[in-house]
């Protein structure tokens, strides 16, 4: 029987669930202008959630519900950054949603439920919890993608996402059943320690299927096909969620399944991850070059970034995981700023998402052009920005893992990737604006302020990246 203690461990999740329900109810009763309260309340809910996560964090890992739910430093960091990036997203999205008459209440409630899914996922101690969190996250996401019901593109993207997601989910579940068959356990810690030679093949099949599920969630090639269509089709306010908090969640899922559960098979799965990494790097970077739509470009950029994240995972030890986690966080923050700028530039009836829309931005909004430049440089991995150190660390861990060739491939594709990021910068600074367009940033003060902070943080964290990395290392038990 669950004890009070179990629920205490679950406090942030429980609190968010209650809050999400409250917001859903408020949405039903509030009218028109009053709904702005939901916006601010949601942000406060998230920030309080983050505070609860940090404040209630026990010194060592604890688990509840018979080991199904784990609260450890890794989960803490992942939750904090999921909550923070989601809060950023809420700030960036308000004007966008209002301009398009998208139901704000549903947006906030669904996102909150998805965030709860993330929190459950990254705290999972058993295969069931993984699946539970994942489904809560993805089901909410399907609905979010389809939120703009009047848009055909949005609906199409939602359907694709849903069908492919279901396929991936099925495969993952199939893999889990094999793992259960081989080990007679759903508990990740138990699975890790089962010595089961005769059922090894079955177990490895399970590993492969689990990796398909993880690959889909990350958006690693060849399980990436949904990414460009969903990124482009979904309302930008939703794309940002898929591009930020969900990446952190995907890393958490990979870590829980592969290390906590299947760590004994690291020798097998790291080779598979290396293959996925190379494919992701190649497909992501090469296809990004030919994109003209910025959201689609960022979609392919995501695929290549997940390739880099996998470089950290292939090391399959705490050093590699901390590098990969650092990378996930750096990517999430950078990507939040990137979509934030797209949101800031868009207005009613106009989606600022073509690269051409950014032509000559420096002449009209020099500050936003500068912020965008920071973001692009960080994505490209130009020192001394945040993204550079992420790349440096994962390349380092690939080398340490003995995958020198993989690091070389990564470095080569990082250079190729430079091309399309710099093209955005070039367009902003050196090209003349397209006639008849007048793309400017919205005069939304909270957005401007937070977005500036977010982009400047990329520079600040690039210069002083030590503390954050040390935090990541501590979470995996590395003491500097």
């Amino acid at each position, binding site marked *: 029987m669950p004890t009070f203690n179990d629920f205490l461990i679950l406090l942030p999740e429980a609190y968010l669930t209650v809050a999400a329900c409250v917001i859903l109810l408020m949405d039903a009763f509030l009218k028109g202008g009053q709904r702005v309260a939901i916006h601010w309340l949601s942000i406060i809910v998230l920030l309080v959630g983050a505070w609860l996560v940090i404040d209630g964090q026990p010194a060592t890992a604890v688990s509840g519900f018979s080991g199904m739910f784990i609260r450890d430093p890794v989960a803490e960091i992942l939750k904090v950054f999921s909550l923070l990036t989601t809060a950023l997203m809420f700030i960036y999205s308000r004007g966008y949603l209002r301009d398009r008459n998208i139901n704000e209440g549903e947006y906030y409630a669904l996102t909150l439920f998805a965030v709860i899914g993330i929190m459950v996922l990254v705290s999972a101690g058993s295969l069931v919890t993984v699946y539970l969190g994942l489904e809560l996250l993805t089901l909410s996401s399907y609905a979010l993608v389809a939120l703009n019901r009047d848009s055909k593109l949005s609906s199409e993207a939602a359907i694709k996402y849903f069908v492919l997601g279901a396929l991936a989910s099925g495969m993952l579940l199939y893999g889990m059943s094999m793992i259960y068959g081989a080990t007679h356990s759903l508990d990740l810690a138990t699975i890790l320690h089962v010595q089961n030679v005769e059922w090894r093949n079955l177990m490895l099949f399970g590993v*492969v299927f689990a990796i398909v599920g993880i690959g*889909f969630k990350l958006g690693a090639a*060849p*399980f990436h096909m949904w990414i*460009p*269509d969903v990124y482009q089709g979904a309302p930008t306010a939703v794309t940002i969620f898929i591009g930020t908090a969900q990446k952190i969640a995907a890393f958490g899922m990979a870590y829980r399944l592969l290390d906590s559960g299947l760590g004994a098979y690291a020798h097998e799965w790291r080779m*598979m991850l290396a293959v996925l990494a190379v494919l992701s790097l190649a497909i992501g970077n090469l296809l990004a070059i030919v994109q003209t739509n910025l959201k689609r470009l960022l979609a392919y950029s995501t695929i290549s970034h997940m390739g880099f994240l996998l470089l950290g995972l292939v090391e399959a030890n705490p050093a590699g995981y901390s590098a990969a986690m650092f990378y996930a966080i750096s990517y999430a923050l950078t990507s939040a700023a990137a979509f934030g700028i797209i949101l800031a530039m868009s207005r009613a009836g106009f989606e600022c998402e073509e690269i051409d829309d950014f032509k000559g931005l420096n002449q009209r909004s020099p500050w936003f052009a500068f912020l965008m430049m920071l973001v692009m440089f960080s994505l490209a991995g130009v020192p001394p920005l945040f993204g550079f150190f992420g790349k440096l660390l994962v390349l380092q861990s690939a080398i340490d893992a003995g995958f020198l060739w993989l690091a070389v491939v990564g470095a080569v594709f990082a250079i190729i990737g430079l091309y399309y990021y710099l093209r955005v910068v070039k367009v902003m600074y050196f090209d003349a604006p397209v006639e008849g367009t007048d793309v400017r940033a919205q005069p939304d003060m909270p957005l401007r302020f937070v977005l500036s902070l977010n982009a400047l943080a990329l520079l600040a964290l690039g210069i002083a990246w030590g503390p954050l990395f040390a935090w990541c290392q501590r979470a995996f038990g590395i003491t500097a």
Partner: protein
Amino acid sequence: MDLSLSVLITIALAPLVGALLAGLFGRVIGRVGSHCVTILGVGIACALSIHVLWQLVSGDAKNFNQDVYTWFQAGNLHVSVGFMVDRLTAMMMVVVTFVSLLVHVYTIGYMADDPGYQRFFSYISLFTFSMLMLVMSNNFMQLFFGWEAVGLVSYLLIGFWYKKPTAIYANLKAFVVNRVGDFGFLLGIAAVLYFLNTLDYATAFDSAGALTGRAITVVGGHAWPAATVIGVLLFIGAMGKSAQVPLHVWLPDSMEGPTPISALIHAATMVTAGIFMVARMSPLFEMSEGALSFILVIGATTALFTGLIGIVQNDIKRVIAYSTLSQLGYMTVALGVSAYSGAVFHLMTHAFFKALLFLGAGSVIIGMHHEQDMRYMGGLRKYMPVTWITMWIGSLALAGTPFFAGFYSKDAIIEAVGESHRWGAGYAYFCVMAGVFVTSLYSFRLLYMTFHGAERFTVVGHHGHGHAAHGHAAVVGGQSIHSDPGHDAHGHDAADEHKEDSHHTPGELEHAPSESPWVVTVPLILLAIPSLLIGFFTVGPMLYGGWFGKAIHVEEQNNVLGELARDFHGATAAALHGFIQLPFLLALAGFIVATVIYLFKPALADSIKRALHPIWRVLDKKYWVDEVYFAIFAKGGVKLGRAFWRGGDAAVIDGVLIDGSASLVERIASGGRRLQSGFLYHYAFAMILGLILLLGGYWLVGQG
């Protein structure tokens, strides 16, 4: 008492500080400020150098050898910045800083109206710093640094008037030719490192014996003795820097630079770096008879054949330039017969009298309002008495008149060659003997054409405004930058436009020539004194007294100067003995021939020229060396470059690597784009394929 490290550092850095102040803050501190800081810097360096030399000579201080700073450490290779100061170094330091100081002062007058005044002072101070780093070094790497730095400053100064095409041509030429030499030099340093595992002088010299019996296969399968390879390669560097045949072609053209630097860099100091280097490396060179013979032959060839060209030159600076080449040849010959002290001794005396001759020529050029062609001079002695007398002293020293500085050094070289039994010594003896006659001939020809005989210029001045309107004539040189090549043209603005037309006609002067201002004549006098006396006072100890101690190492069987020392009974006796020796008689013959032809019967010159036309043409064309180089190396280089550009750059790099990879990426991307069809079942299919890929991969791994 030992030499103080801080004193040595001050010597090296004081000119650098001056150069930086004048170069970076020239506008702020102005013209006077610039020449004050640089002269102060070099003055400090000079005074301290003399102090250091004095300490070493008086025996107060021991030789100094210490690392100051670790430059870099790569593997086992430790390279530091350090100083090795013994008497050889100290003597070079004094020569360099003393001549440099006088040239600084002289420049005040010479460059007075030049717009690049501060830049010029910055460069010559920077040069002084570089040259000091070169001579004071205690390792090969720092030597190479100094070597390249002086080359750089030389390049900058030859092209000082950067709007003048001939100057740009000349500095490019100097740079390119020196690259050839430096390539050999660098290989030589690499060979030292390869064989001796060190770049430190002291360590390398101590272990020089280890070279015996070692060999290296260079080309064609023939194994060369290591010492010979090292010696020849290092000497190739010296050939470039000290302008030895066949790398001599840049030095005459370097006269495109302002005259003060011709005196400082292209006569007194930088070009002697090669001589100094070989003398410094004497323990290495002594290991190889072959390398020394090579040096001997090259030096002898340079001494005679470049001197011959000097006879037919009409540009006053070019005559002295060829004379410099010839004298450098003499020094090289001395190196070749293991008479290193003789070479360094001649280096020192030559520094004084050649700097004197160049600065004198500069004074004449000032007086003639930037006319350099001796055919339009003549009879200048009554206009410029100080210049005239000092030039005579310099020329007498150069020609080797007994009691003058040049006599002792040159005579010692000739006798040393006579004593030597090295392969090539017979040829060298002939060359240096004949060279004496040639030297004397062109030296007196220069004097007569410039200072004696009839005036071959006319003064067509605007008498309305005489000298007073222009200040002293020295500083009014309003030649346009597009004047005739070979003229020492200032890059002047059009401040005095009315002078322009008068200068298009050679031989017509605005004003009568006049003596130069004191900043010009004082350095002349200060250089004339050592030109006259220094040989007399130093020949005993420096040449025969083992003055250099262990700085110069000579194997017992090669010690030709030791042989000579037995016959040396003091400077006076040597000079008196010199009057009845063959070299003096040859010099006298040259003097007489020059006097007859150029002073008494000027018409004779033309008839001789006609009679010996084929020879004259060979000399006038400088043996067609330039033409051959131009046809083979320059044109060949351009052709090769074009071939590489078309074949390598345009086709392979741009075509295949750049455009090719871009279009490859483009093709992959558009292919990949087609995969992203938008159809859901394609996407699902891709996922299944991925699953199969992973399973199949696992299957293969599992089976294998």
